[in-house]
């Protein structure tokens, strides 16, 4: 089994001499990534900055990020899993079928060269974006990168990191883990947390129409969900907390305008490498913060007769702790 081998961004800045971006366009989507953390920064053990680093971009189209790369590998849409799986085999010196490899848009020679460079690196890192994790294969595409990275450590130092989307996804992920034990796709209806992406994850709930209400915070599913999901949001009581009008707020029953976190509301954000950063608001907002609105909703709910989960099912025998 693979796992997850990663680090904080400073490790990349100070050590990485080989940097792969896969399925992302940092130049446009994470504009400061190159300069602040990865590419052009001079690092403790990479005193020459950009000159001391090799950058590879793997993507389905030649984005502006390609100009920053030393090597651009254009993979056919939806073939990332095949490429990563081939790399896993090559890393271990296994034979692969050249003709089938070619169907990915990359040649065996190109992939073998990439593997040789990866193994030759002193400290390598792979950043994988939503072009990988949100396309056909989803979690298995990410899984392929995670496993490849773990396996490379038999040869040299290698780490990887996901580049997540808008909002503080990482923060939600971190907090949910210590409060419920799981990062996302969590159900609390039986009085304790259960985890099953595909069953409890938002998009699946909405598309199946399993939920009869929705409270939406720091996200705009109305812009990204499949149509059945959007229709369900419009059908049920949907409440949106957002500083601005969004696709979701338009179809919601209630839209509470809140102060923009980080600009006019404080708090803590977790960076993509799970480092907590305090947010210091620069402006004052006439609107309440998300936190305040949620707290007031909780207080209002607390005045109603409390729902307390009842045991009695056989699903999770509450035995001696294991």
């Amino acid at each position: 089994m693979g796992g997850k081998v990663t680090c904080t961004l400073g490790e990349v800045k100070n050590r990485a001499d080989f940097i792969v971006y896969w399925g992302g366009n940092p130049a446009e989507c994470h504009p400061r990534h190159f300069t602040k953390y990865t590419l052009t920064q001079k690092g403790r053990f990479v005193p020459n900055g950009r000159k001391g680093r090799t950058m590879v971009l793997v993507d389905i189209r030649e984005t502006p990020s390609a100009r920053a790369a030393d090597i651009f590998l254009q993979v056919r849409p939806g073939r990332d899993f095949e490429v990563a799986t081939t790399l896993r085999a090559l890393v271990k010196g296994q034979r692969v079928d050249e003709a089938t490899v070619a169907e990915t848009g990359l040649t065996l020679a190109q992939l073998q060269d990439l593997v040789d460079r990866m193994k030759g690196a002193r400290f390598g890192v792979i950043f994988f974006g939503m072009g990988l994790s949100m396309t056909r294969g989803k979690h298995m595409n990410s899984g392929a990168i995670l496993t490849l990275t773990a396996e490379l450590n038999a040869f040299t130092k290698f780490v990887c990191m996901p580049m997540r989307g808008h909002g503080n996804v990482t923060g939600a992920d971190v907090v949910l883990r210590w409060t419920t034990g799981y990062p996302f796709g969590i159900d609390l209806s039986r009085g304790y947390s259960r985890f099953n992406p595909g069953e409890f994850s938002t998009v699946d709930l909405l598309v199946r129409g399993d939920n009869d209400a929705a409270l939406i915070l720091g996200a705009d599913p109305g812009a990204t969900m499949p149509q059945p999901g959007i229709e369900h949001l419009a059908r049920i009581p949907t409440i949106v907390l957002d500083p601005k009008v969004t696709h979701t707020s338009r179809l919601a029953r209630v839209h509470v305008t809140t102060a923009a976190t980080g600009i006019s509301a404080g708090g803590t954000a977790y960076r993509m490498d799970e480092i907590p950063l305090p947010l210091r608001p620069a402006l004052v907002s006439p609107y309440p913060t998300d936190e305040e609105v949620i707290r007031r909703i909780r207080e209002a709910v607390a005045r109603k007769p409390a729902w307390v989960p009842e045991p009695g099912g056989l699903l999770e025998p509450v035995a001696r702790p294991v």
Partner: protein
Amino acid sequence: MLRITGGTIYDPANGVDGVVRDVCIAAGKVVADVEGGRTIDATGTIVLPGGVDVHTHVAGGALNFARGLMPEKQRVARKFLRTADRRGGLGGLTPTTFATGYLYAGMGWTTVNEAAVPVLSAKHTHEELRDTPIVDKSCLLLLANNEILLDLLEAGEVERARDVVGWLLWAAKVYGVKAVNPGGVAAWKWGKNASVMHEPVEGYEKLTPAMIVSGLARLVDELGLPHPMHLHCNNLGNPGNVATTIETMQALEGRRAHLAHLQFHAYGGENWSTMRSGAAEIVEAFERHPNLTADAGAVLFGDAVTVTADGPWQHMLHQLTGHKWGNLDVENETGCGIVPYVYRDRHVVNAVQWAVGLELLLLTKDPWRMFLTTDHPNGGGFWRYPEIIQLLMDAEFRRAQVRRLPEAAQSRIVLGEIDREYSVYEVAIITAAGPARALGLTRKGHLGVGADADVAIYPSKPDADGRLFTYPRYVVKGGEIVVEEGEIRQVVDGREYVVRPAFDAAIEEYLRPVFQKLYTISFDNYAVEPERVRDAEIRDLPEPS
């Protein structure tokens, strides 16, 4: 106000060994006497100070990483259903923060020491400790691979190093210093390790693990920290590491130190096929070094999750077992690795490990120096402490377990020949009085007047499994009854212990540029804001000696 009457008191710190008398509580403290208030009839029970866990991993980036890494373990974990006044949670090997509080208190433990905190993510650790109810908490800062510090030690700038340590401790709002595999984690940043005490660390000219050990121990003493340097020795888990551990004891040159989870550092033999217990040698050396305390880090058969800053060891374990592997290197400071593990009684190496933990506890004559831990969750869940206590208190039961081990294992251990049986008094020492003293928590681990009113009241007869200490009748925390008949009755908040060492404030002018060169966040965002720590009890330390 509360009076606990009729119970048999075991309070080793005050020399009380099984005396029937009242414990009186007012305003969260033990007092000489009270008028009125509730009375608990403790007749036929044994009354101990609330347990103190000197070494555990219950909060912060590493443990939270582990939570996300193994949903299959949470799925089978104990469930705490939400009630009107209690939040829900999951138990298991990486419990959610709320469940951590319930599980410790539910067993009679009221103080825990989180043993591994990087400065960079200390804010996160404190957020989790804030959400860990009932128990009081302290935590230790990972420093033995902090590159700013290692550079100063390499350069021999001890004065400045001391100010840096002082500044970092206060920046992180922690209670003490932790050293994990000194130099080895830094080396791991290049995929290397540091398992030889007197060879320079990868990337350094002179600096050796031994120099880091002695240097850091010295700084800790000079800063006058209440808890000595908390040391996870080099070469963890490897056959023959007895030698490394003894070299480390010598490297300390008589300075104070607490050796963590000693079980993992007490193996003889040359390789996995000849690996045997080195407990006798370790204890012999340990007793020659009165400057040291230690905890067992005992392992129990069954599921575990190895969570440690010892990155290189974890990669080894991943390759050994093929189990999933989590690794998180923290810039300039430390790393962490996670690998799920199962200790099997049919597996010779595991059987030896099981025996070594118990041997350390049984061979060490002075219980005030060797404490009960499983290095949770590395050796097994902390909620299994009662199983270890049973093994310590009942030699016959223990031998029966030994006889069930593989022949090959029995020939590599001495556990079968040990007759010692722990008394309740000694149990109170290794679970409460001793750890509290080692941590320098003067109001913990005893029931004398002025002590925090943390009391665990257990039935005097073992339960159906032959165990004491599994289900307390009552647990009192800070004078509040939090557990009754093994059930959580009331959820209170715990405080956090923090030290503020004395250091030259000008050190910031040195640190700021170095920091900005090495790190990726603003120096002004580095330190933990005081308001982030709930109910901090801050202890100001005197000027360095």
